[in-house]
């Protein structure tokens, strides 16, 4: 029971980090970014390169990796997405192409085998029958921290307010002097940074492989839909829901069915409550 509580929380934290970035860029810029999984993967690979090949110490490597991906995201938005903003489908397609290039690029640069990133915390805690590694607890803590920071950023800073304004009314915001286009790049960078943080934190105990971008992408997409496209609290709620249902199914039923849980949840949500749990934008 305690196991489920803690492990479910860790899984939910990871999912929340993935989903929040995805829903952020959609809520603000109406971009369905299929390269989001690639941001997650790039974070992990950047951490790998910096620690295992360039032998940087862990903390600077992590920060640098996240910064690198944030810049990558912003540049991608500026160079590839902005010219195509006229067509939602075109944007979808180009982000897809980026994801494909990421996968192939990683294959060529680093090979198909899983790569190792050393953990920040190597200790393991045991508490009333539960063994949990320090890295997982760190991920949980960092996930909560990141989400809290994001909340504060949007509510309390000028930049955050600007972003809120654009998501509510792009034209109105521009009349007020907020440079919408530049904001989109910033938000994409932010979204990428959050995804990369998840990648860096989970790399030590999950997988670092060229195909690592696909499953998180599908899960993030699913969570965001269940939570409501464009709603950050919705994504967090849905992440909790999905994280826990998967953990519970794995513990009590059969680990062969865990991956199908999210899919069924998505399908049910779409059929029963299409706007998602807290969706602002109607699905009809």
């Amino acid at each position: 029971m305690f196991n489920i509580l803690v492990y479910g929380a860790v899984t939910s934290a990871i999912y929340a980090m993935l989903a929040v970035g995805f829903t952020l860029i959609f809520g603000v810029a109406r971009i369905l970014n299929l390269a989001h999984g690639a941001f997650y993967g790039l974070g992990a690979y950047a951490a790998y390169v910096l620690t295992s090949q360039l032998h940087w110490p862990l903390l600077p490597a992590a920060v640098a990796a996240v910064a690198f991906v944030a810049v990558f995201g912003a540049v991608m938005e500026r160079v590839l997405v902005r010219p195509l903003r006229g067509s939602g489908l075109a944007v979808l397609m180009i982000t897809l192409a980026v994801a494909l290039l990421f996968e192939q690029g990683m294959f060529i640069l680093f090979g198909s085998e899983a790569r190792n990133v050393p953990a920040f915390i190597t200790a393991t805690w045991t508490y009333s029958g539960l063994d949990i590694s320090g890295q997982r607890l760190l991920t949980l803590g960092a996930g909560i921290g990141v989400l809290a920071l994001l909340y504060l950023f949007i509510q309390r800073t000028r930049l955050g307010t600007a972003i809120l304004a654009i998501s509510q009314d792009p034209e109105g915001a521009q009349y007020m002097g907020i440079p919408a286009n530049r904001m989109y790049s910033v938000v994409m960078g932010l979204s990428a940074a959050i995804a990369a943080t998840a990648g860096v934190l989970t790399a030590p105990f999950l997988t670092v492989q060229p195909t690592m971008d696909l499953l998180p992408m599908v899960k993030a997409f699913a969570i965001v839909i269940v939570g409501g496209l464009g709603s950050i609290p919705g994504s967090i709620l849905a992440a909790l829901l999905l994280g826990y249902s998967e953990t519970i199914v794995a513990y009590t039923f059969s680990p062969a069915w865990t991956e199908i849980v999210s899919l069924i949840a998505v399908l049910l949500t779409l059929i029963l409550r299409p706007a998602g749990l807290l969706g602002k934008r109607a699905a009809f």
Partner: protein
Amino acid sequence: MRGVFTSVAALALAALGGASLALADEKPIVIGATTPIQVQVGRDTVDALQLAIDEINGKGGVLGRKLKLAVADETMDPQQGVAAIKKLTADEHVDVLIGGYSSGVTLAEEPHIAEAKTIYLDVGSASPSITDFVKKSYKRYKYVFRVNPINAPRQADQLVGFTTGKLKSELGYNTMAIVGENAKWVQDLAPVLKAGMEKGGIKVPMMELFDPDMSDFSPLLSKIKESGAQYLIVILSHANSDVFVKQWYDAKFPMPIGGIDVKGQDPDFFQRIGGKAIAETVSLGMLAEPVTPKTMPFWNGFTGKYHRPPVYTAPGAYDALYIYTEAVARAKSTDPDKVIPELEKTKYLGTQGTYEFDQQHDVKPGPGLINLLFVQWQDGGKRVIVWPKEQANGKMISPPWINQRAEAK
């Protein structure tokens, strides 16, 4: 003047004669490698074949003809696999196909291989269904042979030998859990394994197959802990072994692990997961130990030329090429109808043991033939053979946080 003329003419004639002789033998024997080249197993298949080809060509080739390599990327997608087969057979007209890794791809390719009437030597797929085709329809599928690895159910038999012979009889483990990826080859193998272990007096309180995409094993590990087993048998190939073993180590899991872990066979597995594979026992065909007189020359040749140690498809591919060329030499032809009967009579001492094929063209395991070695990762990434007894060269250790059952003698 006439002397010079005559000499020049003689030289020219000799050159022409030599050239025509060379031209007559020039048509090389083309080896078609069909393998996923983006993956380590694929790259090693190609490199091992090239190594063998260079060696054989250096000794004059086969039947006076040189060997040449043609490669087609079959990826892990059956559609690309079928296209690769067609490219090699219908476009590049290879004399033999060598390769294979994913059973799904190999199975999809088989009717097309049969259609092309080209011999195919499998060096990587373990599904028994692959050679079932030969049994069901010999005339059509006689071209298919499996050189490597021994098929999944037979691997189960060898694993039963390890669990009953080593773990139970020598070390006293009598309760074991089995965990594997929910893939067809495991579904074929697991019941055979469980039945064999139970027949040998081992209790199996839990056998669980998990989704191959799973990357968070904590719930599964918890469940296994609660089962009361003393040892965890794993059956992993495409699943995230790296992650599984890392998580096993991080959780200081109270059971040692061992079994079939294809990724755990990789020579750099220990180092790439930061040493967390300590005390994991993995079944292997070959490592840097003189299993046969040909093992070390191959190992040194491969690592010398390619600066990395080979994975399991490499010795298979290397030996497969030699098996083929020797059969061709005996048949004095590359015509499949003549080579196949010779292949069926194969009794070849290679890098992993002696190869013989059964009625279904499947490589035979057994004493004196091909056997799985059970090898344990020990300190510093050293690999020690712990089973079978005849080949064991060291004692089995326990994971550092578990203080029992290591061989204290």
